[in-house]
């Protein structure tokens, strides 16, 4: 803290000195401001904290930090420059610098640092044990804390509480000490520090005035630790958490040019982005599966009884080309078009003996074409738009290896996967704006979007949107806008017949397995009565419902009016109502948002805003939870 003060004072002295020396130069203009303050916060190190963006110290107990906000602008004949520094604490500060040299080189640099406190679950709710834990048998759902508590209460060693499930076969020793793991995890601070450096430069060569060249970079790092929760199944489920190191780095470079040739404007940009996670993946011991005859059986698990990595953040790289062109034929008529191509790649590794991939690199490609026309006929302006884009996501297969120790999975099983992002999308839109009076316009609009997903299960969605709005200025101090929008959505994104867990969708999977193979009439009790309520004749049918939180019809109306009696005073009243429904899944959502806002600026330095908003939202939807029959 002491060093921080010294640095700040030194910087302040230099800047004041610079300002003084520059002020004596005739014709040049220097403007600046310095604001110094103090901020403080009492931080309570509760693992379940909700204050995500703490700007002061990450230490416990009350702490005080100096705050500094300074900015200087310099305007010379040929050169202008500006610098802004906003310092709140060592964990939160911003800096920006810009320079313009004879309009030939225009440069900007922005740097930002912030802290983000991540979720920290205590897993206290995960105590679903249903057995005689105190007797030392295997609980059904456990956490490290439950294990640790049992060890403490019974005085038994961890190996006895956890049984052979927790024995690491490689070392024949206890895989880990639950109490130690719990203590370590609960004491972790899950904080990620994000730093971002952005820079952009434009180069305009006077002898080539039609073209301006652009280049930019963005480097973002995220360092720290977040909570990683893993789940393994043996007799039941063992849920435990540990700290996962974060060391992410994103490097993004752009370059391009803008050309203006009379009525034509052409813009091209190439972007390449490389994302890497440089920290090691966390690993955990996946407890040994119970032998066949217990639930779940060995045969139902892909792996167990060993340490495996989990919570992996995959590296990826993206490249994109974008070209846009616009032609202005008059002040009211212009045509523009664009083409975008991008690809995202991510390398994968499989786990021999558990699963193999037929593609070691997964790639997703995007190609988009869009065109727009703006024109006017008399008092009516038109905006007409159309576009088509295609996403070609990865298609690949995963082969799950046979399990050596069971009798039911004696063959390798291969499953085909197709990314749900693969699609072909067509968009069309037209808007007409009619000027009813000098300060009053009526807008009517229509949009259509068709999404054809390659993954047949998610279907094709067609959306028709109608819009109407009137905006008016009654006089110089009173204005208002009212609008209405209706959407008709045919087959919104939905999981068809998908409420059943791993039951298989009869429309898309083998009809000889899963629900499709069931015939409730076949199931009878010992007296030949098939009218009794059984899991398979009362629950299974409900497990084939469609499920979604997406509406197939939307109505939304907005009203807003602003009264501004003076240039430094305004009052706004607004209300928004929205109704969504989807009868197919019994979904309904009502939203009402009224609000009021008062703004008053008695001086240039003082702005006062008082606002109130009431947000009411009520959602109903169908949900399916099977009941347990024994």
């Amino acid at each position: 803290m002491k060093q921080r003060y010294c640095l700040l004072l030194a910087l302040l002295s230099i800047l004041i000195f610079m300002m003084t020396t520059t002020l004596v130069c005739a014709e040049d203009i220097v403007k600046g401001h310095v604001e110094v303050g103090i901020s403080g916060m009492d931080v309570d190190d509760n693992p379940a904290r909700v204050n995500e963006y703490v700007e002061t110290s990450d230490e416990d107990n009350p702490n005080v930090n100096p705050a500094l906000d300074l900015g200087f602008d310099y305007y010379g004949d040929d050169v202008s420059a500006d610098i802004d520094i906003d310092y709140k604490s060592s964990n939160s500060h911003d800096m920006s610098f810009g320079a313009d040299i004879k309009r030939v080189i225009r440069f900007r640099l922005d740097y930002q640092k912030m802290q983000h406190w991540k979720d920290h679950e205590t897993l206290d709710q995960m105590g679903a044990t249903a057995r005689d834990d105190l007797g030392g048998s295997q609980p059904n759902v456990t956490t490290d804390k439950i294990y640790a508590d049992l060890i403490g209460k019974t005085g038994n060693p961890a190996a006895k509480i956890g049984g052979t499930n927790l024995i690491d076969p490689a070392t024949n020793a206890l895989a880990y000490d639950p109490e130690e793991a719990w203590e370590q995890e609960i004491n972790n601070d899950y904080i990620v520090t994000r730093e971002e450096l952005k820079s952009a430069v434009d180069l305009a060569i006077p002898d080539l005035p039609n073209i301006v060249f652009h280049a930019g970079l963005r480097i973002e790092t995220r360092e720290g630790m977040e909570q990683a929760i893993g789940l393994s199944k043996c007799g039941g489920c063992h849920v435990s958490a540990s700290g996962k190191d974060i060391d992410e780095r994103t490097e993004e470079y752009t370059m391009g040019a803008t050309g203006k040739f009379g009525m034509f404007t052409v813009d091209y940009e190439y972007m390449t982005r490389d994302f890497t996670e440089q920290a090691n993946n966390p690993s955990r011991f996946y407890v040994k599966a119970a032998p066949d005859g217990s639930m779940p059986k060995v045969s139902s698990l892909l792996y167990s009884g060993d340490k495996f990595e989990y919570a992996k953040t995959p590296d990826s790289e993206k490249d994109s080309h974008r070209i846009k062109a616009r032609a202005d034929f008059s002040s009211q008529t212009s045509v523009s078009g664009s083409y975008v191509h991008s690809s995202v790649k991510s390398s994968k590794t499989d786990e021999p003996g558990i699963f193999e991939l037929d593609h070691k690199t997964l790639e997703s490609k995007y190609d988009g074409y869009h065109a727009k026309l703006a024109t006017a006929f008399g008092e009516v302006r038109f905006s007409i738009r159309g576009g088509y884009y295609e996403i070609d996501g990865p298609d690949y297969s995963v082969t799950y290896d046979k399990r050596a120790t069971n009798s039911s999975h004696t063959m390798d099983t291969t499953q085909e996967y197709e990314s749900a992002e693969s699609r072909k999308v067509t968009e069309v839109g037209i808007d007409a704006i009619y000027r009813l009076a000098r300060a009053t316009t009526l807008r009517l609009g229509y949009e259509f979007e068709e999404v054809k997903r390659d993954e047949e299960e998610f279907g094709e969605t067609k959306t028709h949107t109608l819009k109407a709005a009137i905006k008016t200025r009654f006089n110089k101090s009173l204005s208002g806008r009212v609008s209405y929008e209706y959407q008709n959505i045919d087959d919104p994104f939905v999981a068809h017949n998908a409420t059943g867990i791993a039951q298989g969708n009869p429309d898309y999977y083998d009809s000889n397995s899963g629900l499709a193979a069931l015939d409730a009439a076949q199931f009878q009790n010992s007296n030949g009565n098939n009218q009794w309520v059984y899991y398979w004749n009362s629950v299974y049918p409900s497990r084939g419902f469609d499920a979604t939180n997406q509406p197939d019809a939307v109505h939304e109306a907005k009203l807003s009016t602003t009264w501004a009696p003076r240039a430094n005073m305004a009052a706004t009243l607004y209300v928004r109502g929205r109704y969504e429904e989807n009868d197919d899944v019994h979904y309904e959502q009502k939203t009402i948002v009224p609000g009021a806002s008062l703004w008053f600026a008695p001086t240039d330095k003082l702005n006062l805003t008082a606002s109130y908003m009431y947000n009411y939202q009520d959602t109903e939807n169908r949900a399916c939870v099977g009941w347990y029959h024994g």
Partner: protein
Amino acid sequence: MLFKSTGTKTGRLVKLLPLLLILAACATGAIREKLLIMPQIEGATYVGQDTCLECHDDMAENFSMNVHGRLADFEMLGAEKGCESCHGPGSLHVDGEGDTDHILRPAELTSEEVGAICSKCHTDGKLMDWTHSEHALADLSCTDCHTMHAEKPLKALLKQEDPELCFSCHQEMQAKSNFPSHHPIKEGKMKCGDCHNPHGELNTHERTNDLCLSCHTRYQGPFVFGHAPVEDDCTICHDPHGSVANNMLLQNEPFLCLQCHEGHFHMLRESNYQSPNATNPRAPGTELANPNGHEGFQMSFGTKCTTCHKVVHGSDFPSQPLSGGGLTR
């Protein structure tokens, strides 16, 4: 190779390209100015900036801090430079001793008239789609957000800083930015303009997911084991403007998840376990102690799905059960 000549006709076009570029380069700003006619002042002619400053000398200092006052000659491509570039030819205004009916005053013009003045130059980058933007279609004028003659000009000559300027109309978004879960806008680490292009749509030329992934790149994938709604549209689960639920989810877990997924049957199961009666299976067994109470299963499975299905955005590792796609590892 991005572009490839594949035939005779294409080859000729490629050869003609330099000639076309030269011809296009000759079409300078002067020609553009004649083509893109802005609101007319009948009979007026240009008088030059020095004439304007004879009366409006108070504008001189402000304008030296304004990018419009610092433009280089070569940037104008031969078009008119100075006050009359935006306010139109000023001879009648001068002759009329400042008659305001004979000069263009953007604050008094309609939105499309103001747009016509600005689009003499501003047709590139994020401004290319202005005519089709929600703001333009809502009859907003350039001068609703920008001011050219501010005493202390802000970046992009805005009337107020982002987000205050945006919040002056979008009050609901201001309220949502103060919801318990929000992007760090009120903390000053983000601005509306980081995601939105006020002169167009979103700050992406691809779909919405691409915008989100430019910062949340860790979820870019493609993953071996994906989650369909994540790949379809981030806003199926998230409200980026802020929400009451954690992680900007539309609703709290498990209700959000249960709208598409069946809940585990354990959610309805009580934890009052009895050991089976060895001699008569239909007879009650022995009640066994459960230190976590009878609601243990309901709490475990009905509190938060992502406790176990932690990697809900996708994973490169299979889950332990045979299907592999449970997003638990």
